[in-house]
């Protein structure tokens, strides 16, 4: 059963990923991205990270990709990019080397170290079929607000800064019609 889930989700992920890099129309690429994100969310559930799966769908697929689409529509860059030509001749071979290199090497590392991964922590709380359904959230919350509370506060500051910064970056000065 898990195998089926895995294979399906993997297919979604890979098809979506290929779609992102292959589709010349940016809107199509964004939609492929959504497919990938959904696939990843399924994977999260399979790995007992229920909360994160939810966050993945709501934030990533729901907010970030929507933001992408907004910008695409706003700027009118939905014209297709010409993928057949490449101004830097060396770029595609380099990309191939990088891609294959990364994949190959990481796979090699993973495969050769699979016996070195061992249990370290106290274990994940898994919801059982009848009992408490939000054990994952509780455990995650304890971790975030307990061990990593400083990081949490800092990221909240980061969010504020990001918003303020972006507003400043993109505002038009009143009357002149020019950007800052």
């Amino acid at each position, binding site marked *: 059963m898990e195998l089926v889930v895995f294979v399906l989700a993997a297919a979604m992920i890979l098809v979506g990923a290929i779609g992102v890099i292959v589709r010349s129309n940016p809107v199509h690429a964004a939609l492929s991205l959504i497919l990938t994100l959904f696939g990843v969310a399924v994977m999260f559930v399979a790995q007992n990270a229920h909360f994160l799966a939810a966050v993945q769908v709501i934030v990533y697929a729901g907010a970030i990709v929507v933001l992408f689409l907004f910008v695409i529509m706003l700027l009118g860059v939905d014209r297709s990019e010409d993928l057949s030509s490449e101004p830097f001749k060396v*770029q595609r071979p380099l990309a191939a*080397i*990088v891609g294959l*290199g*990364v994949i190959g*090497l990481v796979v*090699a*590392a993973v495969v*050769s*170290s699979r016996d070195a991964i061992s249990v370290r922590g106290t274990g994940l709380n898994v919801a059982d079929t009848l009992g408490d359904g939000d054990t994952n959230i509780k455990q995650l919350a304890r971790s975030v607000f307990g061990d990593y509370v400083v990081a949490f506060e800092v990221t909240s500051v980061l969010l504020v800064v990001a918003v303020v910064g972006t507003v400043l970056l993109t505002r038009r000065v009143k009357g002149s019609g020019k950007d800052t």
Partner: protein
Amino acid sequence: MLELIWLIPALPLLGFLVNVVLGRVLGEPKSGALATLMVAASFVVTVGAFFDLISMPAEERHHVVTGFSWVPVGSLHVDLAFLADPLSITMALFVTGIGTLIHLYAIGYMHGDPNFSKFFIYLNLFVFSMLMLVMGENLLVTFLGWEGVGTCSYFLISFWHTRDSAATAGKKAFVTNRVGDWGVMMGMFLALGAAGTLSYSGINHAAESGALSAVTATAIGLMLFIGACGKSAQLPLYIWLPDAMEGPTPVSALIHAATMVTAGVFLMTRVNPVLAIAYDWVPTLIAIVGVATALFAATIAVAQTDIKKVLAYSTVSQLGFMFLAVGSGAYVAAIFHMVTHAFFKALLFLGSGSVIHGMHHEQDMRRMGALRKLMPVTAFTFIIGWLAIAGVPPFAGFWSKDEILLFAFAKSPILYVVGMITALLTAFYMTRQVIMVFFGEARWNDHSAEHGAHGDFKPHESPKIMLLPLVVLAGLSVIGGVMQLPFTKDLHFLEKWLEPVIEFGEADIHASWAYENKYLLLGIAVVVAISGILLSAVVYAKKKIGAIEPALLADGWRYDRAITSFMGGPGRRVFDGVAWVDRTIVDGAVNGVGRLVQGAGGTLRKGQTGAVRNYAAAVGLGVVALLVWFLLRGVVL
């Protein structure tokens, strides 16, 4: 007063600085008077130091006053220090003394010259450099003065620089001196390497105690001798001195007769212990070069028509005598002759300057004659100088020349014979000069129109300010011999005075045939001098025998011409070749490195496309490479 010996060079330096700043303001004659005053003050200090030294016992006459530590580098410590010992004080005495007289003379001689104050700037700078040279406690201070006098010589020879011949003569002097300076520098390096110090006491002590090997001493001696040849105009490098007569006559008198040219002899005397322990052929070589130069220059002087050129070649010849003395181990005689020569040669030059001045800048002796009635004081003093240089007793030159020839005979009779022939020639050409200038018929009227038609041209006597130094020098030329009379040991004042400095190197000739028969040699010298004078009188005054003045001699045996054609021909080709090497290979290498870097940069530039994707690709490649590296050296694979 001994503590104040630093004032001796410092006062002319002060005069130089004041005249540099205020010279034009002071104008004529105040700037000249200031310069003269400074040198005179220096003379007074020197006299004071002399009396201080005399009052000390002989072994202690060696006082060093240190200015400051000049070069403290690693194991090399050279101080700017001044040494007051018999030799340096003797040199300083006649440099400042005669210098004062010549400064005084120059105030009169340079009257009306638009660059009057500039002249005295250079003169004071020269006296300062010369005093640094003689008062230096180590080779480096001496070398500072050595270079300084060379530079001032250049300035002063080409003083009237708008004249091409003067500018060229200045350059010639400087370049020729430079060849000699290389020798001095090599000598300094060798001395430093061998003795570990540049100070004279250190080097001489090393030589005396045997710490210096004979080979090293030979090398040092030879190198310093090359320098001396350049500065003192000996045979290979004398060519600048006759041309240096382009400068004003006070310059010729001061620099090229009395002081600068004696620097070489001084240097040799300073390092006499080194010469003493060198191989025997070194002093012999020095003596041979000296006597050969003396003869060579004397033959040329016989055929010269310019009044100053005769004296120039005469100076070269007399310097040859001094080197003959040095080579024969007669350092006392060399210094003796140096001092007497300073007296009478300065006198002769100043006298000739007086004649030139009175003849409205005419220098050709063929257009002079019968001047003794019109310029009595000049004539009288000139005649005294003539008798001194010809070697007629009791004038000063006789005693010093005789002393040299005595030691020369003790070394080798051949040297003596050649020296005697030179002495004969000296008497001959000097008499010729005196007759042509002061006696005979007046020949100036034949060409009076060429002097710009003054109408009735008549030579006149010079002003008193120019005559006073002549009289003083004439007096010194008469009595100068008293310093070292050969009759008894008690009269050897100069020898006793200089003994601490030269005792190691002075040759001991008491056992030689020459010493036992010195009165015989004395007599021969008198006879030779008188016969030279008489022969010249017969040729030039009585005109019984025709004058022999071949063009070859007048041209200086074509030596100068030979050097010029060599340098212009093969020499130039060598220089061009060296310049080619410098341009192509050295510069090519340096510029080539630059071009290489430029090319490499240009090639690397192509990687900076400005496109983010390329940079991202580069980052990606780096990541892959790192992963490979980690995996290869890590534990995983």
